[in-house]
């Protein structure tokens, strides 16, 4: 029985955020009517004042009641709550007074002004409770903007800096403190000051020193996003991988609030993350992304079906994305015309396998139009230097397999503009010796593979079977 009544009060309380907007709107309108009705032109509005003051006062009282119930079920910053509560009650009272004064045909202009002022103050206080007291001013201060990095400015010397104050606190401030701080303590958890961090909340400890994987704060952060216990709530800015690593590292090293970064044990990964805080950049090495960063619109289903019916294995690269990979390995009696079908999916197609087909130079023009390609297999085809020029437009290309084709160094040279090319396979081509050295100079960042391994014979080589030697 008691459980049920608690739930009903909680349920009613949750209507507060909806209800509060009624008195704000209605009472402001009533105030406007009162002022306007002084003018001859708007005399007729007088009729509406009674009903608007009545509804305004009623909804103000309802808001007060639901707000009171809500304050009992969640924990908020007491000082702010106190002010909001009593300003709200004053607003409700004065709107009731206004209603009765109006009924008795007394002057109500002065009271209309008071209503406007009280509503503004109460509304602002309410907003501060839910969105944080710096919600308005945040727009002017740079740094911790929504979804951005926790660190506004680079740390000058990270090893000399304070582990908690300079490295960990900014993360908590940016990602947690809005709901678990001085203004709000959801789940009775506060993560803004050392004493509160160690104290935990209504579900027990939030941080277990030395054991990140047993600490609720880490568990909830790495929980899958579709789980209701995931933190921060999915609509709020999330921690990035680097911030999670730092937080785990700090917990693993014993939750220390005083020592410097250099005094805590660091593995290579943490070292490099810490180092990156000095430059303000996420990663020290620039990595070309495996997938395009921006998503793309869906490819037309008709185009996909057409390719599919032709025997092309055309599949999405991953869920939640529209990028495609196409593989012609099982296409029977391939002709160059089959490549025309790819034109309609050129925005989506990033992996393409045309290996082992009767592909010739004249077909490469069609491939040159597939500007999104990241990975391209052309091995064991009849292509040569003539057609390869068409590939020089594929600026996103990272992997290119030209093994067992007729290409020579002259053809490959034309691709030197492909700045993202990371891997180039030229096994079983005529390229070797000086040509290869030349290419390696032309593509300094590219791994070029031509095969030609030799297994050196070792003294300890036991592949020639001999009796085991025992010491």
């Amino acid at each position, binding site marked *: 029985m008691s459980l049920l009544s608690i739930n009903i009060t909680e349920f009613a309380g949750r209507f507060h955020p909806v209800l509060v907007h009624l008195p704000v709107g209605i009472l402001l309108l009533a105030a406007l009517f009162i002022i306007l009705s002084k003018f001859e032109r708007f005399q007729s509005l007088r009729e509406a004042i009674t009903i608007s003051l009545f509804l305004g006062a009623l909804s103000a009282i309802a808001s007060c009641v639901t707000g009171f119930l809500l304050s009992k079920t969640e924990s908020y910053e007491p000082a702010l709550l106190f002010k909001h509560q009593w300003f709200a009650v004053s607003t409700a009272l004065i709107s009731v007074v206004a209603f009765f004064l109006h009924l008795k045909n007394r002057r109500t202009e002065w009271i209309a002004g008071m209503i406007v002022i009280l509503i503004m103050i109460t509304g602002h206080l309410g907003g501060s409770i839910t969105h944080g007291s710096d919600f308005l001013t945040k727009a002017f201060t740079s740094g911790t903007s929504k979804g951005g990095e926790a660190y506004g400015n680079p740390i000058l010397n990270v090893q000399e800096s304070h582990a908690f104050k300079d490295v960990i606190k900014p993360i908590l401030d940016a990602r947690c403190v809005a709901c678990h701080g001085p203004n709000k303590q959801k789940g009775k958890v506060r993560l803004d000051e050392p004493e509160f961090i160690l104290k935990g909340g209504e579900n027990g400890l939030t941080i277990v020193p030395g054991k990140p994987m047993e600490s609720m704060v880490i568990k909830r952060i790495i929980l899958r996003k579709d789980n209701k216990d995931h933190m921060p709530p999915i609509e709020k800015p999330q921690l990035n991988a680097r911030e999670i690593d730092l937080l785990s590292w700090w917990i693993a090293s014993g939750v220390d609030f005083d020592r410097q970064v250099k005094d805590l044990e660091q593995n290579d990964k943490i070292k490099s993350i810490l180092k990156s805080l000095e430059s303000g950049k996420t990663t020290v090495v620039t990595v070309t992304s*495996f*997938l395009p960063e921006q998503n793309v619109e869906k490819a037309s*289903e008709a185009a*996909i*079906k057409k390719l*599919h019916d032709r*025997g092309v*294995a*055309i*599949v*999405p*690269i*991953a*869920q939640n*994305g529209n990028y495609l990979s196409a*593989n012609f*390995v*099982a296409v029977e009696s391939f002709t160059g015309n089959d490549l025309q079908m790819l034109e309609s999916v050129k925005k989506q197609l990033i992996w393409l*396998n045309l*290996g*082992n087909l009767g592909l010739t130079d004249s077909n490469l023009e069609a491939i040159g139009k597939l500007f999104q390609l990241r990975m391209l*297999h052309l*091995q064991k085809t009849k292509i040569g230097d003539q057609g390869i020029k068409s590939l020089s437009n594929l600026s996103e290309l990272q*992997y290119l*397999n030209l*093994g067992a084709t007729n290409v020579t160094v002259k053809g490959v040279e034309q691709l030197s503009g492909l700045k993202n090319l990371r*891997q180039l*396979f030229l*096994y079983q081509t005529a390229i070797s010796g000086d040509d290869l050295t030349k290419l390696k100079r032309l593509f300094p960042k590219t791994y070029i*593979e*031509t*095969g*030609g*391994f030799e*297994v*050196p014979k*070792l003294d*300890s*080589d*036991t*592949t020639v*079977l*001999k009796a*085991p*030697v*025992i*010491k």
Partner: protein
Amino acid sequence: MEDNHKESFKIHSPEFNHLNRGIDRRNFLTKTSLGLGALALGSLMGNNLFGKLPGKEVGKSPAPTLEDEILRAIPHFAPKAKRVVYLFMAGGPSQFETFDYKPKLSTMFGQPLPESVRQGQRLTSMSANQSILPIAPSAFKFNQFGESRTWISELLPHTAQVTDDLCIIKSIYSEAINHDPAITFFQTGTQLPGRPSIGSWISYGLGSDNKNLPAFIVLVSKNAVKDQPLYSRLWGNGFLPSEHQGVQFRSGKDAVLFLDNPEGYDGKDRKEMLAYLSKLNKLQNEPYGDPEVQARIAQYEMAFRMQTSVPEVMDTSSETSEVFDLYGPDSRDPGTFAANCLLARKLLEKDVKFIQLYHQGWDHHGGLPKGIVRQCKDTDQATAALIKDLKRRGLLEETLVIWGGEFGRTVYSQGKLQTDDYGRDHHPRCFTMWMAGAGVKAGLSYGETDDFSYNVVKNPVHVHDFQATLMHIMGIDHERLTFKFQGRRFRLTDVKGNVVRDILA
């Protein structure tokens, strides 16, 4: 397929008259009660509620099943590897003579295993009754190789040459202590027989890029010591539709059994025959909706396509002698481990999703030094050659190569310890396996064992963790690829498994 049989289906034979009269009473009741209900539900939910499956055939049922929903979400993320080749070293290779270098043991020859190490852990009945458990150091030397300065035994000179491509896990552990449960555990995620093999899950989840070959192919070495049996259920589909079971390719005349046309039949009207058979099967399946009928139709069609594709892929005449030299002399003899490695490369070039090689003979309870020399000689060169060959062809970038057995072996000798002869019993508490290629860090040694390679002291990797990681590299969240069977949803890793993120590239 061609269809020259347009007239409606009817069997003109007196025995089938009752069939021609229409469906019988029992069928009528089932169909009407279930069918009407399903029809009502379908119209309630709206046929377009789930939309249409892109690129995947839904058949005639308008509302996709739970299974369709699960499959449509795959790949869950962009795969690092598109293909897997798994070299299974059946029998349990000793970690002491291969990858797990334990120099401190050399001074402890013959001493009893300290109780502080064993801590009362169970032993098999083969060595539990021994009066002493004498420590047997490796009879073989170790050297450091590659930029990673990894210690590798002198028995693996070729593997040592590719050490910078390997991601060696020294801390893998299992719960099963005997061969069959252990190998079943590795292959299916549970020690009891009956669940689908990893390759079947991958085939079910990801399908195939090449419709002319099965997505899951199995090759068993003919030149291995057959000390422990391999059952075909290890590559079985369990409860998954049966077209996902592994297809074994054999050495000798028929690579795939019963694939060739029988004697006296020229095969000219095979296509027409299959088209009509498929029509009959579909007709039969319409009232029943048995997925096994669908599977059978798919298998007939696959077999037909394989009549051309298999001889093509088995033909090694276009390979140069340099390739045979790379894989070693055995590679010219079909069915050996070396020839199977070469065949695996050819299958990978044809975009087969999952290739599983088995090489038996690692179960060295006695005579380990002699036995392991032979095992290494049979496998080392071809294993390294496979990595090199894939690498130069640009395939290692998209292929995950895995090497490992079902468990490791004990530090103490089973039976009498002599300087030139000893044996080792089963040891599941720690052993070594490696991965190479797409998705894993090259040149990494992960995990540590104690000085006796008896317990894991750092970064343990459970069999389920390995399976979860393998799925992750293939773009599958192991928790989300499930199949409902007998009222419960099953997955490869059962209720466990964590992706070992530290080894991911």
